[in-house]
């Protein structure tokens, strides 16, 4: 390669590395701001802001979804399999909202530790399958669980 071409090649590599390092440093510095939501563990540990709204994300705990007496407010728990936080939300829930589903709620923490949401978004997972496959998977999973229980019991 001619000297001039080599020079241009190195110059381009220099630009790419320079910009890459700068971007990595900047993203690292703003890491927390790029997180879309806090997890229930972080909220329990007091890492989430108590005086202004933030987002809370987690899985809706099975059997926790209840309608409150006024008929409009839904109350449910979200978990990250470690800690659990209760959420109260008044409004229309997205189509994908259901127990076991990942959700992201926006709102504020009440002094009693309940998260009062003004918006609930559903986070869909990366799995795509027809209903009958999902049902079969669930059945085989439950069968596996009962078999395991029987084996450990015997």
């Amino acid at each position, binding site marked *: 390669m001619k000297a001039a071409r080599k020079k241009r090649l190195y110059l381009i590599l220099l*630009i790419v590395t320079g910009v890459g390092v700068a971007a990595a440093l900047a993203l690292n510095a703003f890491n927390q701001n790029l997180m879309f939501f806090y997890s229930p563990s972080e909220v329990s540990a007091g890492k989430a802001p108590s005086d202004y709204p933030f987002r809370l994300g987690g899985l809706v705990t099975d059997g926790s979804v209840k309608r409150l007496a006024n008929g409009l407010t839904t109350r449910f728990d979200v978990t990250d399999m470690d800690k659990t936080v209760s959420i109260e939300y008044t409004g229309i829930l997205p189509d994908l909202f259901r127990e076991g589903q990942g959700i992201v709620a926006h709102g504020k923490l009440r002094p009693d530790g309940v998260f009062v949401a003004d918006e609930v978004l559903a986070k869909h997972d990366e799995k795509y399958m027809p209903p009958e496959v999902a049902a079969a998977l669930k059945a085989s999973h439950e069968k596996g669980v009962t078999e395991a229980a029987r084996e450990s019991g015997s």
Partner: protein
Amino acid sequence: MLRFFHQLGSPKHFYRIAGSWIPWLAAVCGLLMLYGLYQGMVVAPTDYQQGDSYRIMFIHVPSAWMSLFIYVVMAAAGAIGLIWHMKLAEVIAISSAPIGASFTFLALVTGSIWGKPMWGTWWVWDARLTSELILLFLYLGVMALYGAIDDKRTAARATAILAIVGVVNIPIIHYSVEWWNTLHQGPTVTKFGAPSIDIRMLIPLLVMAVAFKLFYLLVVLMRARVEVLERERNARWVRELVEAP
């Protein structure tokens, strides 16, 4: 073989060879798209959670893949143009920008239409959506910069540098769903490990991905031919071509 590539480097032969490829590419690409759509809209089953709304994926996901792929091609072609002063690489780079912008726009819009019923919102400022929007602005910036400079070769060099600097955004888009928690879900189809998707849904997705790649190749050749004609308008072969088209 070597002679073929050498010929491809000359504008006159590029114009002729690209012209002979275009009808074939168009035919294969069109057939693949029809097959992919049939597989995706008719054969593929309904999703267990998202119902039929997931069928937006057959446009959204290939578009998003193309938006990244075309950007890398554009920056690489721009770099080749800068280093080796290869005119054809400059032409490919600048011809790629509007196509890449189109696919980025499609990924954003179809994602938004998908997000409304599924997530419950048209738009959120999470890391994936924001970085993809920046990609659209990068494409538009490349196009605007190229249009703003009169001398085509200077313009090509300036846009190549902008495109190369913007490459840093590509890994950010790709890994955003892993580095940070986002509303956007993680990848379904990855190089490692089996994809967590039913085979009848995966086939149309991959067929559409190949069809979109061919579509890019088709349109980039069509655009590059126009750009070559414009740049070579004083050359003898263009004058002869204009006389007897």
